């Protein structure tokens, strides 16, 4: 895969994370999350066997599906709005996210030379971008669904970075367990208000 194609994938991935940071429309968020996992998979197979990389894609899609089905079961998914009107909060988050993506793009080459020489530039840009956008999401929002999406975004960036430096089957299994656990915890937190305590 050429570097320019990889950079297209990187910025598509970061755009999805940015959408999740900015928009508060659950259907859009689920779509963006699934697409983000797809892009992470495409970056992952630049340095790892696709048969191993696909595990992360499957886990990511399962995570998205768990959250999506939870929202569907609660009947809280609203139809898509095709006319975008941005609130002040969305504009602020969007600008903060864009600023961070620019900062990551500018600082990554130097950081790569100094700290992560084994990681390719596109992979490092994507992973740091996801980590920072995830952190931004965690710092700006207290709604459980978005906190979980923020944590998943942070983790997918971190896993991409970690995976570019080391591969371990046990670690992959534990990461998969953490991702699925986060999705289940997210689903639990979202639905538990709807169900009475059973004891």
């Amino acid at each position, binding site marked *: 895969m050429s570097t320019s194609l990889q950079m297209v994938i990187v910025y598509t991935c970061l755009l999805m994370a940015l959408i999740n940071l900015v928009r508060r429309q659950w259907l859009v968020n689920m779509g963006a999350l699934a697409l983000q996992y797809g892009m992470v998979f495409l970056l992952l197979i630049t340095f790892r066997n696709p048969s191993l990389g696909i595990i992360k894609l499957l886990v990511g899609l399962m995570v998205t599906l768990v959250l999506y089905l939870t929202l569907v079961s609660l009947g809280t998914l609203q139809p898509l709005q095709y006319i975008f009107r941005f609130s002040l909060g969305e504009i602020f988050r969007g600008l903060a996210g864009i600023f961070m993506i620019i900062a990551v793009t500018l600082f990554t080459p130097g950081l790569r030379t100094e700290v992560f020489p084994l990681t390719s530039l596109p992979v490092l840009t994507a992973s740091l971008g996801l980590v920072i956008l995830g952190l931004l999401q965690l710092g700006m929002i*207290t709604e*459980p669904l978005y906190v979980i999406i923020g944590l998943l975004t*942070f983790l997918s960036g*971190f896993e991409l970075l970690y995976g570019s430096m080391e591969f371990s089957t046990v*670690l992959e299994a534990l990461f998969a367990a953490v991702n699925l*656990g*986060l999705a289940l915890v997210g689903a639990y*937190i979202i639905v*538990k208000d709807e*169900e009475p305590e059973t004891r």
Partner: protein
Amino acid sequence: MITPVLFILFPLAVGVALMPLARKPKASVAIVCVASMLLAALALFMPDDLVIQFAGRRFVFSETLSVLGRQLTVGPEDLTLVAWLFVLNTLWNLPSRSFKISMWFNALSLILTSLWIAVLAVEPFLYAALIIEIIALLSVPLLSPRGARAGPGLLRYLIFETLGMSMILLSGLMLSGIETAPSASPLILRASMLIVFGLAIAMAIFPLHMWIPMLGKESHPWVYTFLLGMSQTILVVFLLVFLDRYAWLRGLPGMFQSLSLTGVIMIAVGGVFAAFQKDLRRVFGYVFLAETGYAVLAVGLSQKGGLNDLALLMMPRALGYWLWGYALSNLQEKGQGNLVEWPALAGEYLRNPWISAALVFSLLSLSGTPLLASFPGKRLLWFLTPTQGLSLLVGFAMGVGGMVVFILRLIRVLIQVPDEETYADKGPESVGTRVLLIAMMALMALLGTFPFLVLPYFTQIFSQFTQLLPLP
């Protein structure tokens, strides 16, 4: 037979098998308590060569289990701590069904105990960070059961544990192959920063502790004291593992002085913040902060014998948490959540004298009052601290002073003349509750008066950290 199978996989399997029995509380409690006590006894009485003679047969245990190239190791040096964790699990499970907590408590508590042991047993031990994250995820149904909204404390807890995990893991990656490099190497410095921040986040070191009082207000005191008590015990040992294993981490300039200073700051902050609280659920968060401070201080003083003091404090601290959790849980459930704040607490001593006495008693013990359980360990720490600078005593004074102010405020509100209306509609504490409270208070007084009876056994827990023991 293999010790990790016995002390990690077996309780894990029992916990998972108990999940379908969640609606049969008596059976769940009985199975968890019996399993925990058996495992505790086995860990406590297992000889150092891991060979047991029983009924004419000889059982030889191996200490390592390999899983996909990684090891789980529970050696003879770990068994005292393993036994203590199972004892704690029993203590918290025994009266658990008298409280309205999650129906998964019994099964999950056993699973969590086995995972905490796995945290210490896994090699390479940086993998423990991921297990800690899984523990955090499994704790969510206990901390926030159905029927109540998830508060910001719970979400912050998840966030902080995830951040801590990632930092510890990344530091491990940076360290691979350079364990013996000099402390001045840039790689080592980066890895040290990541380890220090990762552990600080995971242990809720000041100022990263804000989620603790928040979570205290959102969760049931019984569950909260159990989870925090367990995590504190293990994470302190986890910190010692890092310090013992990496010479460069120990060799960083001012490392132990910084730990001592951090510990004293936490003691001061915990005491001062506690002094102003009006909600007993939040107070425990600050008590926990101060206790973490004492543990970090003891680690900072490890090369002057601080680990012995840390060992002496393990049991009194856990018993103090138990007593506080039990008394507060009773109070909370009697008043349906209203009796744990000022001014609703007014006159509580007249209605529930033993619960009120237990609240004060547990705080007095945790503060290090003479003749109570924590006194022997804390007295030694107080005497040891000036060796790293007299200014640290100011922090001590602030912390202890703050806690004393809170205890006096608590006593004052408990003995105030109550409003007649609120007085009328609350029943007295049960005989069973009184018996348990009195027994625990008596045990804590006994430990404070005769510390040499039990406490020296705990010093064995830290004997494996040979690099941190004082030089002869």
